[in-house]
Structure formats: C-alpha cells, structure tokens
C-alpha cells in the first residue's frame, strides 16, 4: 500500500469512526462548558482551607487529564495503525518484562508525587491549634442549629450563648472551629467555598475549620443522605467584617420585646399557644390575666414533641434570610439578588438590615405556616407520629386559620 493510499484510507477510517471524533469534541465542549458562578462550585475557594484543597486538587486534575489524553491517543493510534488491512499474522509475542516493569514504575512515581502533598495537606487541614472562635453545629432532620458559646470570637466578646439556625454567621479572616454533631441521623456539613465536608454523627463531635476571606453569602448543603427531606436541608455561611459581626452579636443577644402593633400582639398570643411548645423566642413571657407580661419566661420543650428533640430558635428569625432548613427565602427575589450581588464593603450593612417589610417574601412563609409537611415532606402526620414512637419528625400541620396565620406572620416580622 502506498503512502497516499494509506493516508486516504486513514481519512476514510476517521470518517467511519466519527463517533470517536464526536466524543473528543464533546469532551472539549464539556471542559469549556461549565456553569458560571455556581454557588457551590468546588473550584472557587473563598477561604484558607478551601484554598489548600484547591491548590492540591488542581494539579491532580491536570495530571489525570494528561494521563487520559496519553491513553486515548495511544488507543486511537493503535486502532488506526494496526487495524486489519490484510497484513501478515502478527508475531505471537507474550510480553516484554523490562518494558512492563518500567510502565509499572512510571505510574508509581506519579502517585508518589501526588501522595506526598496529599498527606501533608491532610495534616495541615487538621490543624486546629490556632483557632480563634468556636461554634457548635448540630444537624437534625432537616435543618442545622448553631450555638456560639461564651467566648471572645475573633476579638468580639460573646457574653451569653447565641443560638441560631440556617445561617452560620462568622467574622471574616478569623479561624473558626466548627464542632459538628447530630441529634438524630448522620448529616454532613458542607460549605464548598470554605472547606470540604465533615459528617455530623450522633454521639461524636467532629472538628472542622473554616475561614471566610470576604463578607458574603456562601451556599452549602447537607451531603450525607439523611432521609425524606435530605434535598431540602441546606445552609449558608455568612461572612461579616469584625465590626459588623460585633453588631450582629449584640443584636442576637437582645431579648425579644413585647410587640406594639395590635396584629403582632395577637400574633404573640397565638405563638404562645401554638408554636412555643417547640420554638423558643428569648424574651417571650407568660402573660398575666390583664395581658401584661409576667416575669415567667416561656420555655419551649421540643424534646416532648419531635424525635430530634430540637426546633429552630425564632428570636431573631428576620435577621436571617432563609427558613425551613435554609430552603426558602425570607427575602423577595429583588432584595435577595441585591444582597447576594452586594460588594464586600456594602454587604454587611445590607445584611444587618435583616428582612424589612418591603423585602419580605411572604408567600413561602405563609404556605409553610399553613401546612409545613405539604411544602417539605416530613414524617409529621398523625399516622406517622404513631410510627415515630409518638413524636413528630419535622413540623406538623397545625391547621391554623387565615387570621391566626396573619397574626403569626405579623409577630414573626418583628423578630429581628
């Protein structure tokens, strides 16, 4: 066969094998075709530990890509070069041990090159000795609770414990140690831009270090399958400059005042009878017969009603931007976008405004209060309560009237 003929038949071959060409084009499109600004992108670190991981994984991905290109190139070459063109029966070689030993040692060397930085990164990620702030994180079906113990957190004094949920607020450029556990099944805490995952296992406390470079909202999701509403168990981390963080702390520690608005005042009544069995509002008091506050605080006891023994503290609900496992927004689309797009310097002030009436996304919260399990599947019907040993998993449908819902929303809108 002459060279020209061979070239022609090679071209024909490539045409016949257009699937292979297609696959290569497809691979190229994929590499160039990633989503922009995906909130949980693992290649856009925004904190020290996530950056360590990224610095390690980038070269590994490149090496893997190069090795694949070599293998694919070899296979394509062989497929074209050694296809049956009526040539002689090939020599029956059984192998070349020297070649094989070399081809075994080369990957071993590559892997040593990958292994050493891996091990050193594992240990550097595990370092907790320079921690400047501690936050206790507890997972349960299907939301996260954060407790800030009494401490000086990155220079901000926290005089009394803070309990919040959904949004993990942390001062920027501070080494924050999360101490993660669970109240029921295994969950996993993951804010991709700040660090990798760490499972929340009942009976264990797992440390995970996080730092945020800049103010902003960092999306995250529970990543260990945790039952029915696993897909609706999310969380955000919120970075704030230290001064803003101090403002946030001071606000969180204030007790809820008695509402002044008449509607909200009725809402407080409804909340006391319908919600306060599970949901704590710090500062909510038992009422005297004349409608004034007694000196007896209303203490919730969710352990009697829900399997996890816990329900979100609603004292400062409207300082957060999401509810129900960070799944639905308290902000309407416009305000949400403004907050997420805010520059680092403007973010803090906007976030600390909380949910103002003109920014409030009432529709989702209303649906939730009307019938929570219809919006987010939970084991909280009466039949399921019997299966759960007499307790709910998640929030039940309280069969509230429209009036009651209006009142409760008015009351909650003042929780900031």
């Amino acid at each position, binding site marked *: 066969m002459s060279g020209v003929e061979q070239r022609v038949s090679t071209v024909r071959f490539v045409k016949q094998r257009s699937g292979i060409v297609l696959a290569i084009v497809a691979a190229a499109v*994929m590499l160039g075709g990633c*989503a922009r600004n*995906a909130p949980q992108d693992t290649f856009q670190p925004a904190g020290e530990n996530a950056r360590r*991981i990224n610095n*390690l994984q980038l070269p590994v991905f490149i090496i893997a890509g190069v090795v694949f290109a070599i293998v694919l190139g070899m*296979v394509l070459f062989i497929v074209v070069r050694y296809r049956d063109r009526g040539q002689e029966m090939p020599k*029956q*070689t059984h*192998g070349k041990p020297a070649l094989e030993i070399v081809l*075994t040692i080369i990957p071993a060397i590559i892997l040593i090159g990958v292994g050493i930085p891996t091990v050193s990164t594992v240990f550097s990620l595990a370092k907790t000795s320079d921690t400047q702030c501690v936050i206790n994180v507890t997972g349960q079906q299907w939301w996260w609770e954060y407790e800030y113990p009494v401490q000086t957190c990155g220079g901000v004094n926290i005089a009394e414990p803070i309990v919040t949920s959904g949004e993990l607020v942390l001062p920027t450029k501070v080494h924050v140690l999360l101490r993660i556990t669970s109240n029921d099944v295994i969950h996993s805490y993951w804010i991709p831009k700040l660090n990798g995952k760490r499972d929340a296992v009942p009976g264990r406390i797992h440390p995970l270090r996080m730092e945020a470079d800049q103010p902003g909202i960092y999306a995250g999701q529970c990543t260990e399958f945790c039952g029915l509403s696993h897909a609706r168990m999310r969380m955000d981390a919120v970075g704030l400059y230290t001064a803003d963080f101090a403002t946030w702390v001071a606000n969180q520690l204030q007790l809820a005042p008695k509402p002044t608005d008449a509607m909200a005042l009725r809402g407080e009544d409804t909340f006391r009878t319908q919600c306060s069995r599970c949901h704590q509002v710090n500062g909510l008091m038992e009422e005297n017969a004349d409608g004034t506050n007694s000196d007896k605080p209303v203490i919730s006891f969710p352990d009697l009603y829900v399997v996890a023994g816990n329900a979100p503290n609603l004292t400062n609900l409207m300082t957060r931007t999401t509810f129900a496992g960070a799944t639905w927004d308290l902000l309407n689309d416009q305000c949400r976008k403004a907050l997420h797009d805010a520059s680092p310097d403007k973010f803090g002030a906007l976030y600390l405004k909380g949910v103002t009436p003109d920014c409030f996304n009432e529709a989702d919260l209303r649906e939730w209060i009307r019938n929570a399990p219809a919006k987010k599947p939970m084991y909280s019907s009466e039949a399921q309560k019997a299966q759960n040993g007499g307790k709910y998993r998640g929030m039940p449908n309280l069969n509230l009237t429209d009036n009651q819902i209006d009142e409760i929303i008015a009351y909650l809108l003042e929780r900031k």
Partner: protein
Amino acid sequence: MAIIERPSTVPALAGGGAPQFVTPSSSYGVFRRPVSSTGWRSWLFTVDHKKLGLMYGGAAMFFFLVGGVEALLIRTQLAAPDNTLLSASLYNQLFTMHATTMIFLFVMPVTTGFANYLVPLQIGARDVAFPRLNAFGFWCFLFGGIFLNTSWFLGGAADGGWFMYQPNANALFSPSHGVDFWSLGLQITGIASLTGALNLIVTILNMRAPGMTLMKMPIFTWMVLVVQFLLVFAIPVITVALFLLMFQRVFGAQFFNVDAGADPLLWQHLFWIFGHPEVYILILPSFGIVSEVLPVFSRKPLFGYKFVVFSGAAIGFIGWGVWAHHMFASGLGPVSVAVFSVSTMLIAIPTGVKIVNWTLTMWGGKLRFTTAMLFAIGLIVEFTIGGLSGVTHSVSPSDTQQTDTYYIVAHFHYVLFGGAVFGIFAGFYYWWPKVFGKMLSETLGKWNFWLMVIGMNLTFGPMHILGLQGQPRRMVVYPEKLTGEGFFNLHFWNTVASVGSYILATGILMFLINVLHTARKGAKAPLDPWDARSLEWLTASPPKAHNFDVIPHVHALDEYFHLKYEEVDTDAGPRLVKVKTAEELLAEQEANADEHIHMPSPSYWPMIVAIALPIIAYGIIFSKVLAVAGGAILLLGMFAWSLEPSVADDSDYDPPQGGAPSKELASV
C-alpha cells in the same frame, strides 16, 4: 460417539423370581426423581452448569431492565430543577433499589452466569465440582431477588440508600418494611454468592484438564478465581452486618445505637470492608472477559499474561486495605485518612498495569473491529476515565469536596458501566455463537455499541461537571438558584444527562432486538467464528451436555490456538501456519470419545431448599408461623438432599421398552 450410560437391565427384585418393571413412583413415594433432559423440567431441576449459567444470565438481564427503568425515572425527575414528577419518598426508594438491583441482581449474577457457563469449558471439565450446590445458588439468587422486589408491592421498597447507613436505616427513621426486605433479601442472595464462590474455587483448583497448570489457565478463569476468593471473604462481612441490621430492626437489638453506647460508624466500617472488595468483584470478571477478547481480535497473545494475572491478584489483596476511602468525610482523623489515601493510590498501580497490557496487546496486532472488540476497546477508554477520577478521590482533601456529589456518581458509572457492563456486553457478543450456535447480528451490534457509548458519555460525562460545581447526590430536587449562570449551567447539564440516559436505553434496546432477531433469523455460527484461543471453542456450539467427548491434554497457554497453528521456519523467519481447522479438531475429539461419561442427575431439592429461605424471610417480617413453616421446608429439603445420591438410581428412569438397553446418544 460418546454415550451416557443409562440402566440397561431391569433390576431384579429381592428374593429372586422373574424380573419386573419398576414403576417410576417408587423412589420417593409419590415423587419421582427428575431425569428428563428436554422440556421445561430439564431446566427447572437442572444441575448442568451451562443451563444454570444461562438461567443466571437471563434472570440477571431481567433485573437489569428493572434497574434500568428505575434509572430512567431518576433521570426524568432530574431533567429540570424543582421537578415534581416523583415524590421524595418514591425517589429515595428508586435510587436505593437502582443501586441494589444493578449491583446484587445484575452485575454479580450475570458475571456468575459467565463464570458458570465458561469456567468448566475453559479448564476442560465436564461440570462444576458441586452441581446441586450450583443449582441451589442460582435459586437463592433468583428467589432472593424476587423477594427483594416484592417490597414494592408490600408497603414500599428500602429507602436508606444502598449503603443503608445507620441510624437513618433503623426502624425509627425508616418505618416501612423496605429495609427489612433489603436486609433479608441480600442475605439470601449472599448465600448464592458464597456457595457459588466455594463451588468455583474447588472446580478451578481441582478439575483442570491434565497439563493445565495455573499459569496456563485462561485469563478469564484466573480473574474468576480471584473474584471467588474476594467473595468468600467479603460476603461473610456483609452477612454479619445485614444480620445485625435485621436484629436491630426486627428484634430491637442495639448494635449501632448511640443511646445504648454503640456507634453508628461501626456499620460504615462493616459495610465498606465488604463494599470495596465488592467493587472488584464487579469489575474483575469484565477485566477477564476483555483480556480474552482483545487477544483474539488482535490475533496476538495477551501481552504480559503473568503481569495481568498478578495485577489481578494484587488488586484482590490491596482491595481489602482501602475501605475507609468511602469515609474520608466521616471524621476518622488525619492519620487514618492519610493511610487510606496512600493505600488507595497504591491500587491504581496494578489497575494501570492492566490498561497498559491491554493497549500493548493491540500494539502490532491485526485488529478486527467486531462488536465484541469495540466493547473491549470502549472499556479501555471509559474505564480509564473512571480509574483516573478514582485517583482524584484518593487525594482525600479533594475527596472531601467531591464525595457525595455527582462527581462520584460519574466516577463509579464510568467504572461500572464503562468497565463492568462494557465487559459484559463484549462477552455477550464474543461467546454468543459458542453458547447458542448462532451469530448475533454485527450490524445491530454496531448500533448497540455506538448508542451505548454516546449514551453513556452524555449521561455520565456531564455528571463530572455537575459534581465539581456542587450538585450533591441523592437529591429529589435541586433548586434553580444553585445552578449558576450562563448557557452551560447545571440545569443544562442535567438535561443533557437525562437525554443521554434515553440514548443509552435505546442502545440496550438494540441489544434486545438483536437477541430476538438472532433467535428467529440468526445465521448459524461457524464452529470457530473468531479464530479463538481457549479451550471452550474446542467443543461443539452449543456445547454438548458433557462438554468434551474426551478431556483434552493441555500443553500451552492458549491451547486451542496452538492446536490450530504451528510456527514454521521460512526464509523470511518464522511464520504461523494453520495446520488444523476447528472442524478437524472436533472430529478428532469425537473419534476418540470416552466410552463412559457419567453426568450428575437433576434434582428437586436445591430449588426446594432455596424456596424455603424467602418463606422464612416473609415470616420474619409478617408472621412467625410462616417462618416456622419455611424452616420446616428447609429442614425437610436439606434432609432429603443429603440422602439423595448424586446420580439417579436405575429405578428413576422409565423402564426400557421391550427389555432393550436404554442408552442415550450424547452428541447434540
């Protein structure tokens, strides 16, 4: 002509007197031992390794379609964000059962089917060492699989994920009976795996044809041997775990409950000590298949046979030391994580050896791109993608970002679909003429291959992007607001993956059409259509009931090839010359056929003992009385089995007509 001996005289009655015909009902009172070699009874009560291999394959393909429908439902739900097609509860059941079905009811049994059918043929034996145990294993698999799937109709399937992590899978958090069905069903199919493994180990070690040393054994048989050892050690671990799970759920035991002082991580360790070797149980048979297919269609011996054998064994060993890489996010501490990172990297070396050897097998060859060969080459490429993404997981810090995202889903589908399933399809196309005596259509085969290649890359390729850009697994919905911006956002890639899954399904449909087409109009296969190299091609297609008329004496690796070809010195150096055709070799076999061939007789008892197990399992879930009844059947069956001789008594056969000797010609 070989002859299977059947009783030629009517047994005399005690006390002398004239011989009388024995009535068939005499052997078990009302029952007569099954002896038919044709008809449905010959399949139902068979102990023939070939029939059982086919039944394994057929049943596994049925479950493959079930698991495939589950997969299509999952992909349809995920085609767009915030989709409401499936409820969360149903979605959780679907992904749990999709994985369980594909692993335990498709890949494992279909590779067992290949091993069952081919190992005795490849080693020059007439059956496996324990034929009735073999039948028992098949029925355990089938009944266990059916039992598991009846949960769909009896209150809902398991919903805890195939890994069934505690405490999410205990009775409080998963109150339906689904997990009970799962733990009991897998215990039953586990019995199938364990008995099958012991049977094949004994068969391979003891029943090879004379001259076939271990290092002259066909590579597929070698990989099967490694897998059987993995099964022997891995199945007991999962069985213990399933047993504990069952006791925890059904009888209130406390093995994994924190409140009782136990630790839920114990389950994870038990599960993954089984779970990781399981990955190699799934993939090594396919490695064996392509290691047979590539040399045949390259017309060269396997490059570095010894390296391939030892790397397979090395994967089998190292596979036990990597389980905690499934738990890098579980909070094991940096020392464990570092150790398991390194051990996981180690396993890439023997795996890389295989890729290198397959590539070098083709190097310098004379490649024929049959469908079987295309699937084998496809495996090299697709498995390399899965293997390399596996190496990125061994980098544990990066794995804490990627674990439980779609990147992992992409990884193991490239390994299990691009690896295990492509190998299985290569095996179908390669051995179909051997097994059925008919050629699968190559035209439909090419459609089948290219649709599957395009479909699988469109389905699983985008999942790399989805995972790396933060989409977690096991989510019934993903919100629009997490999909990012631009045309190529995560919504786009999810839609591509869903479209790809339908293309993939079309490819598999092509295979089914091909099978039907071949059954009706398929061309009769030549005796040796591929110019093959191993012993299974020495016998007729389909093989005779007793496999070989005379047991071959083995002198070399690729014995069959060396029977056909000889190296002749010419002026231009040594040349291969064909000295015998397949037909001549078969004629030689038939001419020298053994006079006396004893094959084991069919039996009811393997099936009866096996059917007792799901009855007990239903009893454990629904009624203690039923469990006792099942136990009684089990005991009775075992008792009867142990008293039954392996070869049927003379009295079990129909009396000879007119006193003539009853001998059955064995050739097909």
